[in-house]
């Protein structure tokens, strides 16, 4: 069996907030493990504060993990020095949520898109200029706009620039952190089709982080659902969306409004919201869990309160972290 392109093991990140007596440690990511195979898309989905963006940041080493292991194409990234990391960046790229703040406003598109070639010392066969124009065309931008600045483009076009920069050197993995959440639906669909088309053409893998479950379903082969820093469920796409196992995944999926005429849909309404009532120890979801509030016996509940559930396989290709699935 071949090794996965990206392998993340027991990744953890804590941030220290405040100081003196107000000092407290926030665990943003708490023991996350997953793999991304060559040419595949792994969707990471969850609500605010679940640690999905922190995880993405650690994979590209914009955030230093507190502990854990990240192996990319056989090389361990954690603790790797910048000098050794740089050649790997050709293979490992990122697309950010907000193209406005991830593009230098004082550089032209041409300069922005030539940078990867200069930084990595890559000389494309037809020259950098020709390659950049080709890239612009490929992502649906007019190559004549080479000398324009980011502010002269619309939000959707700016996201195309960000994507063009990420794929310039034909990376093997592109980490996308909420790449379409700032866009209107009609433009969002254009960008989603672009991402899918580029993957078909170049065969790269995506680590696709988003809060929108429908968008994740559309693009992903495998899906990881996170809640308060931990993976609560992981499965192949159809498994996850057709037979969600974890009570959180079930509630999450049933909460998404569907754009079609409503038949009576059974909705699992969760109470409370994520950050305010994070319980200590045991299962982090129990404060909002409909099963914990309802059907479970007192003895079962003790287990939820005391024992943190680990991600266990339910069937080939589907695992969930719940004592009672």
């Amino acid at each position: 069996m071949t090794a996965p392109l990206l392998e993340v093991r027991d990744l953890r990140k804590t941030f220290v907030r405040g100081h003196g007596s107000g000092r407290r440690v926030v665990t943003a990511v708490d023991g996350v493990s997953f793999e991304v195979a060559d040419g595949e898309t792994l969707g990471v989905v969850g609500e605010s504060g679940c640690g999905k963006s922190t995880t993405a940041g650690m994979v590209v080493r914009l955030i230093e993990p507190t502990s854990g292991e990240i192996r990319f194409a056989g090389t361990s990234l954690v603790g790797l020095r910048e000098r050794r990391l740089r050649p790997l960046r050709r293979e490992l790229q990122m697309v950010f949520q907000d193209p406005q703040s991830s593009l230098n406003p004082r550089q032209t598109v041409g300069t922005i898109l030539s940078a990867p070639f200069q930084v990595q010392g890559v000389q494309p066969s037809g020259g950098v200029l020709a390659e950049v124009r080709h890239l612009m065309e490929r992502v649906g931008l007019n190559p004549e706009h080479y000398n324009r600045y980011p502010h002269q483009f619309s939000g959707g076009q700016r996201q195309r620039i960000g994507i063009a920069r990420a794929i310039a050197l034909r990376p093997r993995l592109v980490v996308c952190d909420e790449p379409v959440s700032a866009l209107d639906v009609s433009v969002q669909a254009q960008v989603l089709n672009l991402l899918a088309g580029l993957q078909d053409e170049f065969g790269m893998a995506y680590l696709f982080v988003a809060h929108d479950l429908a968008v994740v379903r559309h693009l992903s082969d495998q899906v990881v659902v996170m809640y308060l820093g931990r993976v609560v469920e992981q499965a192949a796409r159809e498994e996850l969306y057709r037979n969600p196992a974890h009570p959180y995944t079930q509630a999450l999926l049933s909460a998404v409004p569907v754009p079609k005429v409503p038949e009576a849909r059974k909705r699992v309404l969760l109470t409370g919201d994520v950050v305010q009532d994070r319980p200590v120890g045991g299962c982090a979801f129990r404060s909002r869990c409909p099963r914990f509030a309802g059907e479970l016996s007192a003895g079962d509940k003790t287990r939820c309160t005391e024992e943190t559930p680990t991600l266990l396989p339910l069937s080939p290709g589907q695992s969930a972290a719940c004592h009672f699935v």
Partner: protein
Amino acid sequence: MADEPLLRVRDLSVHFPTPDGLVRSVDGLSFDVRAGEILGVVGESGSGKSVAGKAILGLHEPGQSVTTGEIRYAGRQVVGAAEEELRQLRGSEIAMIFQDPLSSLHPYFTIGDQLSEAYRVHNRVSRKAARARAVEMLTLVGIPAAARSYGAYPHEFSGGMRQRAMIAMALICDPGLLIADEPTTALDVTVQAQILQLIWDLSQEFGSAVVLITHDLGVVAETCDRVVVMYAGRCLEQADVVDLFERPMSPYTWGLLGSIPRIDETRGDLAPIAGQPPSLIDLPPGCSFEPRCGFAFGSCTSERPELSAAGSEDHLARCHLPVPDRQEIWRTQIAPAL
């Protein structure tokens, strides 16, 4: 005419003069809201949906914008009304909640004080009575330990709780109409479901009509009775929610439906709308959607289509294509691909 709708908007335009030219944010918008119904106003950024919502409350500064047309609430004209009259209307008759509750709540005052004040502005009651009413409202919107939460400051609440507090404040004077401008856009999806449920329950309980402004067709499908689809300042389609999703009659609505990835099924390629919305300063002379429309023909470029009946009396669309042609296109080309 049998009975006048609660809110009647006719040929509403809100234009903003800027150094670059006149921005036609809302341009000839007409719709009705009947008592007790939930009307969805859906559109993408810049479609004019929020500008129209604010116009209903007379919130546009006269010096910076030009509002024309008719907005009649229970027989009273809002456009051009004196500030004093508007002030009476706002809060007591028509209330509004916004996307970001943190910036609509005052950070220095407690949630309870802000609620009580909202009540006392329109009702001559004692502080004590206002306080009791505020606690009652906080309980009603599902804020736990309402008496204790009364003394909390906005920053102590989570996003979902703040939006609940805003809803409590909006409904405290029992208004006939609630305008909710993207009330759940800043919230997580599980909290969004709670808030939409709350708005729906309360509109039933209080009998308030709701204008729900949103970009999310899913929210519209699950919450609204009728829908207005806006594009570049104009209404391109309005219909009963069932008609809109089962028999949409505007190519723009088709484009929106083709653009949305679905949670309930795995779709193949999305069918996005090509290009971008037009500049509101330099609108196309004909149909505003014509440059992006896959079905445009001769007169679409030169003549602005009128909002006209499409299929049923209650179903209106702004499109030059003959109705039978659109029905045929929807049935044979659009619906099968969704």
